[in-house]
């Protein structure tokens, strides 16, 4: 154990927490205990969430908002109960502002399509501009490219500085009177950067543009308060916050959700239907066509309960300590270059790096042989790799169950990688 590790403060009782996560107990490659450092891609799931899914299917499974029989009422109560839990978790002023989707990508695509089909004053057309950043996950770039191509609007973006921060030096030229929507990530999935929300929102509000925040890498790791953020839309996904796959969230301000048109049409999103025309249900149902991901929403509700019981502020402090330690230890590895902020200041628990000229694929393969799971590639953020002139990175990401010993295992593993290709 190194001295730095002894001095770490703010750590959670990971010994207890890890008992809740069955997968963390498994072994790979002839008995090596798994060291899971890919929570930014997806988190592992605690037994409490797995049990909630099982209990739902075994005891309460029925379609929602339809039947009058007991089990159907229970399914509806559980599904809508999950909405209440999520609303409380993000401090939404109203539960009706929480729309369930299948993931953050769908949430962001939903916003882009609402605006593409909207009437004035929200309408995005050839006279208007869309703003995003070079730091985004592809899910917050491609929907806006599609919207720009289809409407003739102009797509603009903020660049990135050498040390992995958003370059806001030209903010007044990027966000202008023509800007209709500014969409950016709260925490970068590749660089780990926590972005200065307030400054961007202040400028967007000056010109009357809407603001959409991708909180996929924030919701699992810190207190997320949509009222404090002052954005118009906030998107995130369940599977990165100990919930199941197949469930995402879009929060939107109520008056916007009332004004904006639906995107997907179908069952459940209507009020009345005739062969000539239809009227729509109020939000959030207006944006939830078809049978929703019921079990997954219930699972997300259990995930929110799990995280809240530990406390988001405590989880944040734990990750901050682990990240500080990891940055420090990684910088000891020869030829290792951190892509993104090289300090723990305003950064999340995902750390990308290159290791000499050893390709990340090869780094990841040799780490895997030692039971260490990291992500390699461009992390669905290829513009960032282009920006730094690298083909890909290796990314280690941490969560509430990560330990300093796992950071040490990674550092030892990288030494082994260097020897293997040395």
């Amino acid at each position, binding site marked *: 154990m190194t001295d730095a590790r002894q001095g770490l403060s703010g750590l959670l009782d990971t010994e207890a927490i890890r008992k809740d996560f069955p997968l963390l107990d498994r072994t790979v*490659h002839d008995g090596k205990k798994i060291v899971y450092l890919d929570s930014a891609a997806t988190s592992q799931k605690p037994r409490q969430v797995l049990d909630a899914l099982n209990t739902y299917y075994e005891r309460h499974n029925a379609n929602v908002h339809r039947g009058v029989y007991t089990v159907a009422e229970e399914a509806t109560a559980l599904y809508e109960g999950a909405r209440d839990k999520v609303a409380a978790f993000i401090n939404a002023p109203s539960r009706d502002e929480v729309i369930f989707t299948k993931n953050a990508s769908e949430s962001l695509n939903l916003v882009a399509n609402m605006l593409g089909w909207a009437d004035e004053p929200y309408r995005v057309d050839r006279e208007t501009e869309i703003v995003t950043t070079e730091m985004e996950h592809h899910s917050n770039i491609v929907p806006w490219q599609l919207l720009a191509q289809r409407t003739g609007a102009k797509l603009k973006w903020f660049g990135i500085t050498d040390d992995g921060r958003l370059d806001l030096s030209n903010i007044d030229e990027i966000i202008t009177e023509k800007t209709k929507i500014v969409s950016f990530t709260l925490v970068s999935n590749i660089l780990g950067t926590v972005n200065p929300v307030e400054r961007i929102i202040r400028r967007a509000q000056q010109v009357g543009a809407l603001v959409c925040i991708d909180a996929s890498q924030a919701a699992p790791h810190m207190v997320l308060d949509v009222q404090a953020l002052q954005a118009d839309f906030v998107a995130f996904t369940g599977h990165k916050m100990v919930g199941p796959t197949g469930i995402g969230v879009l929060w939107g301000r109520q008056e916007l959700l009332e004004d904006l048109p639906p995107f997907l049409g179908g069952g459940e999103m209507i009020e009345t239907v005739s062969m000539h025309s239809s009227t729509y249900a109020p939000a959030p149902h207006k944006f939830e066509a078809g049978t929703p991901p019921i079990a997954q929403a219930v699972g997300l509700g259990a995930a929110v309960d799990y995280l809240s019981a530990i406390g988001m502020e405590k989880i944040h402090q734990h990750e901050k300590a682990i990240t500080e330690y990891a940055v420090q230890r990684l910088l000891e590895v020869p030829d290792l270059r951190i892509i993104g902020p090289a300090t723990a200041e305003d950064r999340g628990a995902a750390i990308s790096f290159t290791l000499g000229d050893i*390709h*990340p*694929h*090869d780094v990841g*393969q*040799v780490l895997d*042989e030692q039971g260490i799971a990291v992500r*390699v*590639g*461009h992390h669905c953020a*290829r513009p960032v*790799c282009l920006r730094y002139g690298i*083909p*890909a990175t290796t990314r280690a990401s941490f969560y509430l169950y990560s330990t300093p010993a796992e950071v040490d295992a990674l550092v030892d593993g990288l030494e082994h990688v260097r020897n*293997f*290709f040395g």
Partner: protein
Amino acid sequence: MKLDSMYQEVILDHYKHPHGRGLRDGDAEVHHVNPTCGDEITLRVKYDGETVADVSYDGQGCSISQASASVLNELLVGKELSQARRIQDAFLELMQSKGQLEPDEAMEEVLEDAVAFAGVSKYPARVKCALLSWMAWKDATAKALSEGKTA
């Protein structure tokens, strides 16, 4: 160690000392990418009648994709197109074998150094790396043929 079945000495040698790397004059050029990992290759083919006169390439990628391009160059340059296609087919078969195919003598004769990639076929995520240059070669050849550069 299991890793050694993937990172055979032959593969690491090709990775560290690639054959025929760099772009030269060609009849057709293609650019292929592996969208999951960002590996890229630009590859040119040159034909002299029915003979593969040159395969030149440049790009970035992991040891497997780089070594595979080097082996391709070594194996295909100087061969008749029909023979080059047999080699490509055999390599494809090997890479799609999920580690189930034990290369026999006949296969070793066709694939030479490329049999070293048998171990890679056990790793689904890496098969695409090994095939990147071979798919690029196939595509470039089709392009050269359709443009009537070869007989």
